């Protein structure tokens, strides 16, 4: 086939640059609206499917959703709970945005979260003598490093052995979860009680709370910080420039002198580190010890959170809060309207399906393999 050159009519130098100086110009709002429309439509479609299910099962959708809204945002405490659930989602989603933009499919955030939680717990149990100023960062750092190593492992397997990261990260998820189960029933089991859980971490290892009297802890601010940092990394730093180039066109990256293999491993480590941090904040901020099932699937929800935000970490803050609200609201919906909270999985799944149907991911998500 001969080269086909798309020949797009040349635009005359326009006065658009003038328009741009006016913030919130109609044009800007229009672009923003166009960007937001598909995710919003996807959410609407999902809520509709949820409503149909509710109606069919004999509940009043209007009432159930009302209770859900109330449960997610209705009070200071409910809002705090929503943000608490959003915290790991934002952390994981920001990291995954980096990975997905770099063209690597990290499905393993769940396992990386577990790896982080294990390391954070170990740090919190062993270094009891240290003051909070040192111990809290140490615990978080341990979680982050452990997650980064767990994620980097999949990156290494891809770069060195050509192993599909989609398959290896799924496998590493199970290995981490099973290993955690072994640790809390075996070597790390608490001394007293002998329930399958570790001892509590030191008081000094616990994250300070920020919104009295709720449980909202500093991890939420940390998550916002990580989202911002991921945004800066991706779109404002030279490293991010390299990663995005790798994600869009490995050939162009090689041409630009970028080490593609290293880029893939770094982005796996970054996304793993963010997920590990999520594990650490769960332990140090909420549970204070390790259990068998420390995550109710945050690692998988995080994938949806990142994709729905078009792999933009700033957008992840909002989709993370949205998914946090869905989870948190659904719990209250179950308590007060007796609607099974599993409904929220259906809603989340349908959000993804309709977003996929609307082509939200087609442009920005690089295909991991090319012919």
């Amino acid at each position, binding site marked *: 086939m001969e080269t086909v050159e798309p020949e797009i009519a040349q635009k005359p130098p326009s006065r658009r640059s003038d328009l741009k100086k006016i913030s919130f110009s109609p044009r*800007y709002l229009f672009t923003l609206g166009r960007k937001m429309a598909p995710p919003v439509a996807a959410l609407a479609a999902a809520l509709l499917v949820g409503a149909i299910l509710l109606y069919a099962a004999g509940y009043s959708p209007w009432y159930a959703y009302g209770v859900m809204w109330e449960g997610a945002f209705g009070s*200071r*405490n409910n*809002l705090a709970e929503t943000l608490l659930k959003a915290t790991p989602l934002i952390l994981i989603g920001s990291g995954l945005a980096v990975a997905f933009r770099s063209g690597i499919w990290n499905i393993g955030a769940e396992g990386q979260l577990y790896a982080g939680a294990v390391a954070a717990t170990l740090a919190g149990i062993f270094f009891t003598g240290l003051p909070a100023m040192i111990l809290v960062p140490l615990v978080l750092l341990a979680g982050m490093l452990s997650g980064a190593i767990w994620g980097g492992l999949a990156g290494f397997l891809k770069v060195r052995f050509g192993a599909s990261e989609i398959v290896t990260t799924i496998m590493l998820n199970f290995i981490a979860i099973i290993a955690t189960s072994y640790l809390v029933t075996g070597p790390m089991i608490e001394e007293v*009680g002998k329930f399958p*859980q570790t001892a509590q971490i030191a008081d000094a290892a616990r994250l300070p709370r920020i919104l009295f009297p709720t449980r909202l802890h500093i991890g939420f601010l940390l998550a916002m910080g990580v989202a911002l940092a991921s945004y800066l990394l991706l779109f404002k730093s030279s490293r991010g420039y390299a990663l995005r180039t790798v994600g869009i066109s490995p050939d162009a990256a090689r041409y630009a002198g970028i080490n593609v293999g290293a880029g893939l491993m770094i982005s796996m480590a970054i996304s793993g580190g963010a997920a590990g941090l999520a594990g650490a904040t769960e332990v140090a901020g909420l549970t204070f010890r390790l259990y068998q099932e*420390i995550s109710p699937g945050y690692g998988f929800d995080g994938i949806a959170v990142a994709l729905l935000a078009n792999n933009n970490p700033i957008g992840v803050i909002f989709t993370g809060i949205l998914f946090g609200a869905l989870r948190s609201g659904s719990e209250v919906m179950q*308590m007060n309207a007796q609607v099974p909270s599993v409904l929220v999985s259906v809603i989340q799944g349908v959000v993804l399906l309709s977003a996929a149907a609307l082509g939200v991911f087609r442009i920005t998500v690089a295909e991991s393999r090319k012919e």
Partner: protein
Amino acid sequence: MKSKIWQLTSTLLGSFLLLVLAGGCSGGSEKEINAGVFKVGLLSPGPVNGQGWTQIAYEALLKIEKELGAQISYVEVEQSPALFERAFRDYASQGYQMVLGHGFEFQDAALTVAKDFPNTYFFISSSKIREGNVIGVDSDSSEAFYLMGVVAALMGKAAGLVGGVEIPPITNAFIGFTNGVRSIDPDFPISTTYLGSWTDAAAAKEAAFSMIAEGADFIIPDADAAGSGVYQALNETGPGYWSFGIYNDYTSQAPNNMIGNYFNDYGQGLVNLARMVKDGNFDIQTNVEFGLKDEDVIWVKFVEGRVPVDVQESVETARQGIIDSKINTLSPIR
């Protein structure tokens, strides 16, 4: 590019702030509905209609509703400890007088929340704690399992125990069984398998099959929903292999194999407690532990015509011994 991004960021952050403010404002109007209604909440660690452990609590809740006219509610917190505290707090702040956390894992969260809600009773299943208004409620399965052990040692050749996950309620029950067996025959073989799951009935079924192949003729599950896999295995194998229904009447699942049922009407026990709470005369100072002494809560009933009279007599002797505290079903093995 830069200005576009800042516009985006500021728009989004602005709308977010609005959201926070809205939430914060309505935070002042937290509702306190407490007028006269007796309200009981349940935190279930799994699907309430899962069979076995989680179902017990749900049925107890329904019984409280029926017998005491309470307003009830439950929430499934799906094994995520991070969410427990929130659920306790939600119930307590809505004026629930009694909240049951159905499992040891709820203990930490209840202790934290209880300080802020002195007027709510927090009951924690399979816990032995008693700190202020946090009260551990345990039904000691080891006593009933002791009796099963006696039956197995007197009537069978070898026993197999299929546990869900290796946690104290299960291991304690199995210790009771072993002590019961040892009281009759110190050399009676017992093998134990844990599934690592409460739902994998297929695995339980295979575990039972393998025990049968090894020569066991008494196979008893303590594995929640997965446990019915054991009954299915026995049913398929045919007569001559025995089991007990655990917590409920499971005779229909293996009509030819069920020698008896261990009933644990935890609900009745909780109704007893709830009545005290409702009437405002809860005066137990320690943790609560149901045992064979609470005859309307825990009892073992044999299937008609399956257990010889002499065995029944031995069992009755053991039961009396346990009630009179002459037998310690949890004494360490060897």
